[in-house]
Structure formats: structure tokens, C-alpha cells
């Protein structure tokens, strides 16, 4: 089956979510990918949303982070402070799944402002749960569309820590989690270099060239020596994803996703 770049991005991100893990899910692309994982290879994943549902199994994608569908299908719904205190800070989240407005070469994230903080050109929604997801989850997956505007040489504002200035700075600052382990875009998959922690393209989606990735990245992007090709979505993955999005469109009049954190 043929597929879009959005589809391979979502499928490639979903594949990174281990079955049996506890996943803290942001709304939008992360929620789509996490639910695709749950409906394919990871039936025993526990999806947590910051509004309170634990173990949500939505039949259609939520449009907001607090849709009733999440509450109705969850193992339990706890107050929001418990999610952040007992679950995220409590060290019980294996994977934090984040989107972002801007990202730099060390996978630091900006969701706060474009331009100076006190006189912003664009005021973005803000931090939401991201700073503590980024620091406390055992590992972080980032899913974001790749453009030179979003993959920038220098962030206007670091909302959430990736690997900061690179190297072992997270360990030195005693951040509890490993930080970003992969950035999945509509063009490629990047992983931090094991030593420098600079994002490195490890896999190109089928039909995508190095030049396209370079053009969509605001810094001189590095490619792995053993650069691979992202395995194409299987028919099953595509069928499940499309059925999910179709159910969502029927329920909401939209394919789900969008903003909200």
C-alpha cells in the first residue's frame, strides 16, 4: 500500500513504543502514534494523559487532552496532581511522548516564544507538562514535522531540556531520565550520538534524500555512517491507522491531533 510522509512518521514513532511500557502521552501526533502502537504491537502499553486517565484505550483519538472518551476507557482516572506527582515525578513513566514547535541539535524543545520572551514575535502556548516529562520520563520520544523553521540552530527559548549542550550534561545535572532517544519526523529518524548527544540521522524514510533533510534542518545535520532506510509501514499498520483516523473523523468532524499539551 502507498502511504504519506505523515503516515510513515506516525508508524515509525509508534514502533518505538515498547509493549508493556507506561507512556505519558501528549495530545496530537504523540497521541496518534501511541494509540497506533497500542492497537498494533503494544496491546499492553499503559497510556497516561496529564488530565488524569491511566490505561486509556480510546476507540477514537481524543481532540483534547481531557476528552470523556479517555476517562471512559481508562483503568482509572486520578486527579491531575497525582499524574504529575505520583506517576511522572514518581519515576513510573517509561516513555514520554512529546511534540514541539522548535527543536535544536541536542533535542532541546521550545514551546514558549518565538523572539524575545518579554517582546515575543509569536507567543506559543507554553510549557504544559513538557519540562518535567523531558526530565523525569525514563526516555523521551519526539514526533514533529521537519522544516527549517522548526529545526533551528538556536532556540529562542529552551522550554524543555533535551541533551542541553550535549555530552553527559544530563547526568551531571542529575536529571532522572535519559532524555530524548529518538526524534521521528516526516522525513527521517534521528537519534542522539552516544557521546556528543548531537542528533544524527539514522534512517531516511523511503524516497527521502539527504538533501531534503539538510534543507529542512537549520543546522549542518549529521548523518550516521550506517544510514538506513525506514522500513515501510505494513499494510496492517496502515489499515489500523487509517481506520483509527476514520473513526475519529466520524466522531469529531476532524482527524484528531492539533495543539494542546
Amino acid at each position, binding site marked *: 500500500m502507498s502511504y504519506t510522509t505523515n503516515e510513515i512518521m506516525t508508524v515509525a514513532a509508534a514502533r518505538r513504543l515498547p509493549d508493556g511500557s507506561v507512556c505519558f502521552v501528549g495530545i496530537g501526533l504523540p497521541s496518534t502514534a501511541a494509540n497506533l502502537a497500542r492497537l498494533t504491537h503494544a496491546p499492553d502499553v499503559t497510556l497516561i494523559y496529564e488530565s488524569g486517565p491511566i490505561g486509556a484505550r480510546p476507540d477514537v483519538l481524543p481532540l483534547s487532552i481531557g476528552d470523556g472518551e479517555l476517562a471512559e476507557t481508562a483503568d482509572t482516572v486520578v486527579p*491531575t496532581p497525582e499524574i504529575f506527582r505520583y506517576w*511522572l515525578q514518581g519515576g513510573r513513566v517509561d516513555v514520554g511522548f512529546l511534540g514541539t514547535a522548535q527543536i535544536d541539535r541536542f533535542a532541546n524543545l521550545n514551546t514558549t516564544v518565538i523572539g524575545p520572551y518579554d517582546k515575543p514575535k509569536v*507567543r506559543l*502556548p507554553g510549557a504544559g507538562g*513538557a*519540562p*518535567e516529562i523531558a*526530565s523525569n520520563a525514563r526516555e523521551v520520544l519526539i514526533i514533529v514535522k521537519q522544516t527549517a523553521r522548526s529545526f533551528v540552530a538556536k532556540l529562542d527559548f529552551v522550554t524543555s531540556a533535551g541533551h542541553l549542550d550535549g555530552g553527559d550534561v544530563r547526568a551531571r545535572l542529575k536529571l532522572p531520565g535519559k532524555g530524548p532517544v529518538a526524534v521521528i519526523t516526516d522525513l527521517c529518524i534521528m537519534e542522539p550520538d552516544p557521546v556528543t548527544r548531537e542528533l544524527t540521522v539514522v534512517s531516511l524514510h523511503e524516497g527521502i534524500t539527504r538533501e531534503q533533510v539538510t534543507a529542512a534542518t537549520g543546522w549542518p545535520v549529521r548523518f550516521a555512517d550506517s544510514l538506513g532506510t525506514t522500513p515501510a509501514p505494513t499494510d496492517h499498520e496502515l489499515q489500523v491507522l487509517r481506520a483509527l483516523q476514520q473513526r475519529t473523523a466520524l466522531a469529531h468532524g476532524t482527524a484528531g491531533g*492539533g495543539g494542546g499539551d
Partner: protein
Amino acid sequence: MTEFVTLREAVAGLIHDGDCVAMEGFTHLIPSAAGHEVIRQGRKDLYLVRMTPDLIYDQLIGSGCVSRLRFSWGGNPGVGSLHRLRDAVERGWPGPLALEEHSHADMANAYVAGAANLPFSVLRGYQGSDLPRHNTNIRFIRCPFTDEELAVSPAIRPDVTVIHAQKADRRGNVLLWGILGVQKEAAMAAKRVIVTVEEIVDSLDAPPNACILPRVVVNAVCLQPGGAFPSYAHGYYARDNRYYIAWDDIARDRETFKALMQKHVHNTADFNEFRRVLAESAGAAA
């Protein structure tokens, strides 16, 4: 003890110019009717607190009721920007808006600290983030036992917390269920509490250990069915996703926004009339 009053009376009696006001509801049970009534009564200089300022705070900010905002994520959930919030921050319209920006984890902790009457909250947070550079209320302390560094911020103690809930009983006890967000903590942290409800019943018939606000913490209960529109009330009505999408166009333009607020809020007596006017507009558009 709880008084049963109209929303107009509750806002008039309990929310004053300059107050610190938290209207909470995490996507679910957002107290929209109360937000309208605050605008209708022309409150000024409010210090608003909310984890996720969305449409009602966009309306309050655009209407010039707000001078200061403590928050952690300001957007139109599922749609995008809050244009009135952005206009206030980016261009100072209709007036300057001071931001106190935190993360969700911090805000949730700060409500818990407020409910517990502690002056500050403690969290493992903000490591590597620029937020503490722009908010002097995010500080760091060391654990007296382990010497670990932890973030602290001031507890949230609103003058007034406003929430919407499914039910109250005739004694003033309030029951909510489904997505609970930080409503209970926000209410317990406040000096005064206003609750709008879908219905008032003889008995809550609540299951064991349900989320109940006992009447001694509730100052006013206002019957306001549909009062969370366009958000939802679990068990009563669904979220109106189209309204959230439509808001994007309305809020984008100052004049469109002002005209709509005039028609829907200032020219209506209450939320029930707003709903009627809205339904008529929708009928006319169809």
C-alpha cells in the same frame, strides 16, 4: 455554609476587582457561564490563575478584565492559539498582561500546596529550562536530608475559585466525576468557592470515595445547566468541538471579537439567554 444563589448574585457578592481568581476545569467542566458573568459585570484588574487558560480566559483577557495571569499552557485545545491572549502579550491589547509562567507539574503542585496551607510547593522540575530565568518565583532549595536540589514555587491561594460540577445536594455538597483535573485542590486552596452545577438533587447518591466537595468549603452553589459549554459535562453533554474551531476565527480579529462579546455576553442577561442567542445565530446560518 453554602448559599444557593444565581450566578449573577454569586459573582456580584464574591468576586471583586483586583481579586486573584482561579477558574479551573481540565478540558472537562470548564466554568464558561461564570466566565461570561464576570465579563458581564465588568470586573477589572483580575489576577487570573489557571493551568490551561483557554476560551474563557481568552474572553476575559480580550474584554479587559485581567492584568495578570499565572498559567502553564495557554492555547485553544485541539485547535491552536488563543488570539486574544497573544494580542495582549504580543501587542498589549486591550492592556498590558503580566505573565507568571510555570509548568503543569509546578502548577498542579502549587495548587496542592495551597490546599494544604503551605507557603510553597516542592518539585523535581525545570532542570535545564529557561523558565526560571524569566519567573523569579521559580526558585531552588536543597533537601535538608540528602542535599539534592529541588525547585520550589509559591503556593496558589486564590481569593476565589470557580468550578463547574455535575451535581449539588440541597445541603450544598458538590459531586463531580470523570476527568477531575485540579478542581478539588483549587477549591480547597481558595478563600471563597463558587460552584455552578448541572443539577441540584435531594441526594448525591455518590459511590464510595467519590470526588465530593463538602458544603463547608462551598460558599455559593448556582444552578446553571449547560454552564460548561462549549466544554463538556460527563454524563450530561459532549464537548462542542465546532465551537472551539469557530473561536479561532472569532478571536483572530479584535472587532469580530468585540462584536461577538457585545452580542453574546453584554447584551444577554445570563448564560441561558446566551445559549438561546447562539442557537438562533446557528439556525440563521444553517
